[in-house]
């Protein structure tokens, strides 16, 4: 009966609330989980790093036709119970076209093979007019785009076996005539589709440097109950703009935004992204420890009000 009501609600109102994974589903044992992006160049390092509760893998790069075809390192991590989240980069859910069923089917296969608690993608477009961008590009934040993206998200949700989380992108340029802020746009998408959010605090830093956004206001505009997990990454200034390279150390400004976020909510997980110029393991461990420290301090600071309630 309750199930029927839920289905009717979803069919008629098309309004669902997000159900991001718990910290426990990401290996955080009831507290915020800490993770790192698994990359083939650092697979052994990731396996040995202390304090890794979950990992993320670029979904397009994994052959998941059969469990035996998964990279051995991911099988080792799964055997240990480490959660693996497929992170898509080429769906283009912010594009004008409906999501490609073949790409969605592949993403679903990867999620199933990895027994993933969720999958994530970006609020971005990656192709148009038969051309490939080769990277994530921002979309015009208009009511018209909102209708297209909400429908694209629903199509993706229907094709995926697990919840979808959508990430705020890092951008170098802005569309003219945006009608909504990014926070408003994401909140509307959450409201309309029940999609979860992957909040990249390095991308919020990028938006602050490149477009002058007020990060505190941006965080306040987000429906924080929808946050599934958080990205942290490094970048660099060049040509007067911040480039979100994932190839440089995480700057203090990015960690400060993580602290601001953790003052407002307890994210189920926080994940460090490093894609190139890989440093020695102790440097990665240091960045993971800094993330853990911010989560712990936020937990302690709210403990008196909540009488030590589990996060």
């Amino acid at each position, binding site marked *: 009966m309750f199930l029927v009501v*839920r289905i009717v*609600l*979803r069919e008629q109102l*098309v*309004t669902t*609330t*997000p*159900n*991001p*994974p*718990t910290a426990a*589903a990401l290996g955080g044992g009831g507290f915020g989980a800490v993770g790192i992006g698994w*990359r*083939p160049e650092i697979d052994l390092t990731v396996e040995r790093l202390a304090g890794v509760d979950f990992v993320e893998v*670029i979904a*397009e*790069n*994994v*052959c998941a036709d059969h469990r*035996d*075809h998964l*990279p051995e390192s*991911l099988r080792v991590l799964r055997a240990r119970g480490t959660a693996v989240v497929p992170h898509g*980069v080429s769906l283009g859910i912010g594009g*004008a076209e409906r999501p490609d069923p073949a790409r969605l089917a592949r993403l679903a296969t990867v999620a199933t093979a990895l027994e993933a608690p*969720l999958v994530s993608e*970006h609020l971005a477009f990656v*192709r148009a*007019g038969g*051309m*490939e*961008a*080769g*990277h*994530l*590009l921002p*979309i015009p934040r208009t*009511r*018209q785009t909102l*209708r*297209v993206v*909400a429908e694209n998200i629903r199509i993706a949700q229907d094709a995926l076996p*697990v*919840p979808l989380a959508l990430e705020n992108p890092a951008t170098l*340029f*802005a*569309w003219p005539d945006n009608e909504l802020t990014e926070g*408003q746009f994401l*909140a*509307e998408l*959450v*409201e*309309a589709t*029940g999609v979860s959010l992957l909040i990249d605090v390095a991308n919020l830093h990028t938006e602050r440097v490149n477009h002058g956004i007020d990060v505190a206001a941006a965080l306040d505009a987000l*429906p*924080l*109950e929808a946050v599934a997990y958080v990205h942290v990454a490094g970048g660099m200034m060049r040509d007067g*703009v911040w*480039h979100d390279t994932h190839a440089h150390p995480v700057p203090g400004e990015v960690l400060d935004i993580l602290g601001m976020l953790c003052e407002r909510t307890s994210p189920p997980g926080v994940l460090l992204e490093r894609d*190139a110029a890989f440093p020695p393991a102790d440097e990665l461990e240091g960045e993971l420890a800094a993330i853990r420290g911010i989560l712990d301090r936020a937990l302690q600071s709210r403990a008196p009000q909540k009488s030590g309630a589990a996060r």
Partner: protein
Amino acid sequence: MTAPPGTTTTEGTEDTESLGNPESPEGPEGSESAATDADRDELARQQTALLAALVAGGTVPAGFDAERIRIQTIALAAKRREGVLRALPELAEGLGERWPGAFMDWACTHPKPAEGGSRADAAAFTEYLRAQGTLPQSVEEALTPAPQHPLPRPGFMARVRAALGRRSTGWDDSDDTY
């Protein structure tokens, strides 16, 4: 591991009210309405015009900051350059001082192939150089398949597979990380 999709609570309503957007012209019904063909056509037109400027040498659409579009164009080409260099490292040495300028100039006006990742990008670039008559001999040699060995005896591949334990690396680098 997680609650089933579609779990309904009352919290969402309260939190979305905290967005501070009282003059939103449309309530939940507005954002829930289905996208029309006109919505998709207009978005396609906007995104295609912008992408043409970024990867195909098109005119920057009105209203955009031309300098930022230039920076984005270079960033996209630079990302492709790194992928192409991994796929065909001989390009840098073969082209010498012309690398990476020749690639960047080409990539800013030639979109990345829709399929095949950086390997296809490298193949398209070398084909362009060959058509221009500027493909270095060393790169041409690197692209030439190694001479064929005599056919192995029947059952050879089966024995190789057995020896390797049918192990797969499980890694496909056709798509780069973003």
